């Protein structure tokens, strides 16, 4: 299934913030986690994550620091800030509204996907 570009873009920020809410992490691990969470359905060009991370850092939602990987390579880690936690809450509320609305309307109709299969 191809998820539309706009939806990918819109969900990227809450996804990254939520993953970082689990604990500090770095780019490659975040991508891997996204893959696990969506069963590989949500595909990004991996590189695109970095401009997003940098924007979140610039807005103060996350902080970055350089550390070392297990093999001793230089690696940039990211951590959620308080402000980022608030932002995540905001996203969550917004998504819940959308999610609830969609659920309601789809429950009252015949499931189009079920019908299709």
């Amino acid at each position: 299934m191809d998820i539309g570009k706009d939806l990918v873009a819109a969900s990227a920020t809450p996804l990254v913030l939520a993953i970082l809410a689990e604990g500090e992490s770095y780019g490659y691990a975040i991508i891997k986690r996204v893959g696990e969470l969506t069963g590989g359905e949500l595909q990004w060009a991996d590189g695109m994550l970095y401009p997003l991370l940098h924007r979140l850092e610039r807005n103060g939602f996350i902080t970055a620091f350089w550390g070392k990987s297990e093999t001793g390579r230089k690696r940039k880690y990211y951590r959620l800030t308080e402000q980022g936690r608030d932002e995540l809450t905001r996203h969550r509320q917004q998504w819940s509204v959308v999610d609830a609305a969609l659920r309601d309307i789809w429950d009252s109709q015949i499931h189009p996907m079920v019908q299709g299969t």
Partner: protein
Amino acid sequence: MEARQSMEERIVEWRQHLDRHPSIHHVDTEELEDHLRSQIDALLEVDLDEEEAFLVAVKRLGDTHSLSREFAREYSERLWKQLLPSGPDAEPSTATKDSFIAVGLAVGAAAAIKIPQLFGVEFGDDPGDASFYARHISLLILPFVAALFAIKRGFDQRTTYLLTAPFVASAVLMNVIPFYQLGSTELLAAIHLPIALWFAVGYAYVGGRWRNHVQRMNFVRFTGEWVIYLALIALGGGVLTGFTVLLFESIGLDTEPFITTWLIPCGVAGAMVISSWLVEAKQSIIENMAPVLTRLFTPLFTVLLLSFIVANIVSGSAILVDRDVLIGFDLLLVLILGLLLYSISARDPEAPPNLFDKLQFLLVVSALIVDGLALWAIAMRISEFGFSPNKVAALGENLILLVNLGWSAVLSARFLFKRVPFATLERWQTAYLPVYPIWAAVVAVLFPVLFNFR
């Protein structure tokens, strides 16, 4: 082992490719490299071979063009190279340290220029004070510029002594020589001492390696960029001055004394240090301006010189010889020399002769003719009225330029006919460089003695 090697090579190549995109900074490349390597390691574990792993990992990262576009959207200011020097190469801490040193030295220069006033020497019309400042102005400012480079290049004791010597010697001589107040020789010293001392700054700039021709060329480049930065700062300073006058005039306060005795002198002194620092800090970040201006003005000055030669021949009138005209001619020829130097400094020595080289040859030849005309006029004057310090100084300068331009013309012609490589021209200019400070020092120090301090 060999396969691993080629993997490293591929990664290095990939990094270089990314680094070429101005919107992706070096730190970003490092971060992306970590990602790439993690991805490759993961792929190797699922039994891909190295080449496959590399290709898949690069592909997953996304093609560099869209990556670069995405970074550019996030960092639009990166495409406008930032004016504060915090480039990728400079460690943030040293960059801050350098800026502190530069600002400190600029304040020092600005203060030094005011120190004589503690002893009652004012900026103004008093001839005694004017004579003092004429002799000392370069000694009050240039040591700070030299100090900036001495600190940055990590001068040891010996090189520090060598650098200090010309400044101390000039300071002593300028006070020991019994100049007639504002006489010709004193004014000549005031003009030539800064030129000589600028090459002492050059000694600091090249870190003491003044024999090295590459370093000499770097100093020439530095001088050109320095002049441009200074002009830009002067423009800003002019705007600042204008608004200072306007604002305080509106409430009936006269700022002129403040501007002429504080703002301008201190501003100029500080700007000379700051522009040195900026050239140094920005040399890799901003495109060099001097070569661009050179390209623009070489044809225009060629037209000017050629039309002057034609007008001179048609009208048949001799060149008027007085001090202002002589200085004007010398400045013009120095400027032509500058045009020549900067186009040489910016040219790819490997490239074959092109149209611009022919144009430059024309410029050199026409400058040579104008120089000859000026020399002729000076020689006539000298044979008619005898020697005077101004005329002899002008004669010397024109001869020095004649030798340079003459040999440059010969070399350019030989280069155009592919007899010699371009590097010969460059080498000639850098080899000739020491002639200027030596002559400037002779005019500043020996002329007073030769001409009885008039």
